Structures are given as C-alpha cells and as structure tokens.
C-alpha cells in the first residue's frame, strides 16, 4: 500500500493522510495508491501540510506500517525517548519500529 505523510505547517507535527484529512496517528492512514501525489500537491498548496511525500507501507493487523524505518520512527517518535512517543503508555511501541 501507499501512504501519504508530511508535517503540519504550523506545528511541524508528523501527519498522515486518512482519506479526508490529516491525522497524527499512522493507524488511521489510508491507502493512497495512484493518487497520493495529487493529494499532496493540493494539500500543500492549501498550506494544510508541509513537505508531503508518498511512501510504501504494508497493511498489518495493527494497521498500516511504513516500509522504511525512518518513517516508522517518524510515526512513533525517537526510539531513545519512548516517554515522548505518540503512544508513551505502550511498552511494545519501540519494537514496532525495528
């Protein structure tokens, strides 16, 4: 599957395209196969996102998982500060990245 991601222009937060809006949670990301670039261009022009790009991902029982470690770290947070992660209460969150 293809995922569309970027950063919120004002806050810099990592965001994922859900099919209709942007979410902080990769679990809510939609498959944008074939039309990710068009959405990216439109959303960037509307200044709802900064530096959007399309990546490969896979569907898993826990939801979409980015194909590259870099985007998994973006989705979760730094692996060395699990307390700052998007799901700080989840002790298994770190192993999802590697």
């Amino acid at each position: 599957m293809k995922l569309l991601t970027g950063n919120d222009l004002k806050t810099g937060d990592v965001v994922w395209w859900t099919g209709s809006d942007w979410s902080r949670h990769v679990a809510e990301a939609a498959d944008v196969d074939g039309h990710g670039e068009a959405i990216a261009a439109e959303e960037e022009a509307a200044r709802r996102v900064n530096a959007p790009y399309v990546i490969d991902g896979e569907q898993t029982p826990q939801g979409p998982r980015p194909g590259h470690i870099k985007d998994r770290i973006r989705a979760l947070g730094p692996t060395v500060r699990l307390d700052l992660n998007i799901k700080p209460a989840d002790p298994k969150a770190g192993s999802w990245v590697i």
Partner: protein
Amino acid sequence: MYKYDEYDQAIVDARVEEFRDQVQRRLAGEISEDQFKPLRLMNGLYLQLHAYMLRIAVPYGTMDSRQMRMLAHIARKYDRDYGHFTTRQNIQYNWIKLEDAPDILADLASVEMHAIQTSGNCIRNTTSDQFAGAAADEVTDPRPWAELLRQWSTFHPEFSYLPRKFKIAVIAAEEDRAAMRLHDIGLQLYHNDAGELGFRVFVGGGMGRTPMVAPVIREFLPTADFLSYLEACLRVYNRYGRRDNIYKARIKILVHELGAAEYARQVEEEWAHVKTLGLDPPPGEFERIAAQFAPPAFETGIADTVDRSDPDFAVWLDQNVKAHKQPGYAIVNISLKPVGGIPGDASSAQIDLMADLAETYSFDELRVTHAQNIVLPHVKKAELYAVWQKLAAADLASANLDLISDIIACPGLDYCSLANARSIPLAQKIAKRFESLDRQRDLGELKLKISGCINACGHHHAGHIGILGVDRKGTENYQLLLGGSGAEDASLGRITGPGFDEDGVVDAIERTVEKYRTLRTDGERFLDTYRRVGMDPFKEAIYG
C-alpha cells in the same frame, strides 16, 4: 564576557521582527516553502523528523547564567523540557512549532542571544576553545577575535548566499580543543619570532563526504587587518566555489582543486585590493571588545591544593578537572555523557542547575564544548568538592571526560531527516559495554565519535575510533574507522573493512581496544599505538 551595546541589541531585536514578518508571509501563503527554507535556515530553523528543530547560537560557546537559564526556559515553555548541545557549541531543540519561533527569538533577544546564521549557506557561528580565558597554555584569549568575527559575519551582505555553509574556528593555544583544522577556516593566534601577535590561517578543512585537514594558506597574518583578509578569502570562494554539485560546493573542494598555493595567491591578490577599502574596524574596536573579556576578579593567595579523601571525588578530579592559569582555580568539565544517557542532552532542570553553579562558583560563566559537554571555567579549588556534590546529585558528575564513553554522537535517525542510521542507541550500547570506570581509565584517552550519515555531524572522521551509520537495503549498518583526530595532531580515520550491525560494531570496538591493550607501550594512547603499528593488527583482531 561580551555585553551588547545599543547597536547589537537593535540588530538582534530587528532580526526578531524580520523573522516574524517572514513567518507570517509563509503562513499566509505569500512565499513558498522553497523560498522560505533558506530564510528559516539562516535562522537555524529546520524541518526534522518529528517537528521543526531550532538551533540557537552560543557564540564561541560562552554564556552567563542568565542566558543558560533562558535555554532552560525555552525547553520548558516551547519544547519538551530538554535541549541538545551540539558539536558547534550551540544548542538545539527538537519539538519546535513554526508559529512559536518568533516568540522564542524575542525571548532570546531579551538575554542577548539569537539563532542568526546557525544554518544555511552562510558564515555560521564562530567556534573557539572552551577553555579560552582560563587555559594555562593559551597565548591570549581568542574570544575578542571571535566576537569581531561574529559581528563581521552577521548579515554579511555579500556572503549570505555562499555555495555552501561556512564554519570558522579560532584558537590561541598549541593544543587544539576546537578541531580547528577541520573547519572551512581555522585561525590560530600565536606570537611570531618578532613577538608580534598574529594568525596562522588554515583554509579548506572539513568533514562530510570528502573529509580534509585544512592546509596552511598564510603562515602569519597580522591581527590589524585580519577581517579584510577573511573578506578576500570568502570573496574568492563566493566567486569560484562550485555551484554545480552540492557535494563539491564546500571551500575544501575549491582549495583542493586549485591547490593551496594557488588559492592563497588568489586571496593575496584580492586582499591587496580589499584592504584598501577601509573594511577593518579601528584598533579601538578590538580594545573595546577585549576589555569585556578581561579576567574576572580572581582572588590571590588562596589554597592551591584539594582534599582528595573522597575516592569518587578524586576520580572525577583527575578526569574532569583541568589546569587553570590562575593559582587556586581550576577548570571543571561537566560531562553530558552519563552511561545510558543521550550524548549532549540536558534537561531544563539540569540546565538550571548548571546556571546556578556558574553563578555561585564560576564568575557567572559557562562554556559549551565541541565534545557536547559543559565547562565551568573558573572554579576555586577549595570549592571543587561542593561543585562535584551538586553535580553528582543531578547525574552530571560522570568522570569520563575524553574516555571511551565520552562519545560525540549526532542525533542520528532518531531525530534527523538526513540520517541513514541511528547514532544514539549505539552510543548507549558502547557506553554500557564499557561501563566500568576502571576499565575506561585503563584504556585512557579514547575519542569515539558516531555519525548517522556521511554528513559527519558526529565527527566520525576525527574519532580515534569513528563510526559511520549507513543504510544497507533498508537496515542500519555501521562502518568502523580508526586513527582520526580533531586535535593539534589532526588526521582522518580509515575504514577497517566491511560494516556491522549494531551489536556487531560494539563487539568490533571491544576487540579493537583489547588488541590495543596487548600492543601498547607505557603511556601510549590508543591513537599513538594505532599510528605506530598501523591498521593490520586491528583488522586481524576485528575480522579474524
């Protein structure tokens, strides 16, 4: 320490309003990200993995307690309660909102600080010796020259769109604590045979993709017109530095392709013209600045000995405290490298504590070091024990300065959008493997430096042991380098051979240092042994 006058303050205040205007235009859609990017970078604002990152300048690494407390305030108010001290003596924050950036700059300006030119293809923050003004071995305090450089380079109208970034370091001792020869321009103050003070000028050093140790391009530059000489150095670079390939755009490539002698000739020719233009400030300006770096009011006739009866304190004293030029005083190095910690990170509470210690014990002065540690430059020997106790209570008394766990590491793939591999977890694993301080001290001075990509922010080329993280088909892989140095004996490390995974590189380092223990002669550091015996014995120990 330098204090702003009305002019300095007006310029920094104007910068806040200019950037506020630029941010508003970006948020309103009047300028594109492509146009905004160089503007925000020239104010140290990056878009990183998790958010915007703001890098704040600490000119030549010197701060007072009020400024240090402001860094803690910014961490608390605008970030996530911590900051990261960098190899260029700056601090950066990882979770900044674009809409907050102008307010952060306004807060900084209230304590004579800024983020001007902490990124971008311009002249960056000038770095210097973290022991400046305190070191027993310096010929003069280099910081007044660094401050002249700060003012000259700030919003330099001709050199704000250079082919690539430009880093200058200035030192005034034979021992190089600032990796001076790995800068675009390195300046070393010394007295010539006639007793005159001047600079030895090195141009074209750097790390990154094509590491180079800077050659000397002028053996002696009189101090009076050194700014016009640098103007000539930069003009030749701005005109002829490569702009066709970002990887070949640094001045080191120009100097290498022209040859140091030809580059020097072009600079001399340009300087012959430039120095007639009256660009150099009058001597009175240097004197005005230098007066503000006058030594603090040291007490004389005080005790020059230290009670070593607490063995843990004695270890820290031997490892982290350095000789001061004033009897009765010492230089304290605060390690930001606790085992298991993140190299260079400090919490806002730790930053506040270090500010308090500076105010109480160090004539209100702090320094940031290029090894990502903090220095209290002027501490009375009689008060070292009290300082140590307060540091220990805040997890700031690691007695590992220049030992294997005093690791320089870039933020790596945990934070950086350019990185190929993580640096911090590896630094933590290495520190853990060599956790025993007795073992570390037995290994002696061993500078280990980790970069998460070829840009070399973690100075891996200059590590006695260096590690470079690479992306091998989507997995993190680490190359090992041996034999680098960023000190006065500057050299570039060589790759041992095939790379390793994270645990593999820790094992390889252990085999390397154990080999060193069998090979060393009395008093030989790892680097000395490596230079004597070469790569082969280590290669065999690593790869078998």
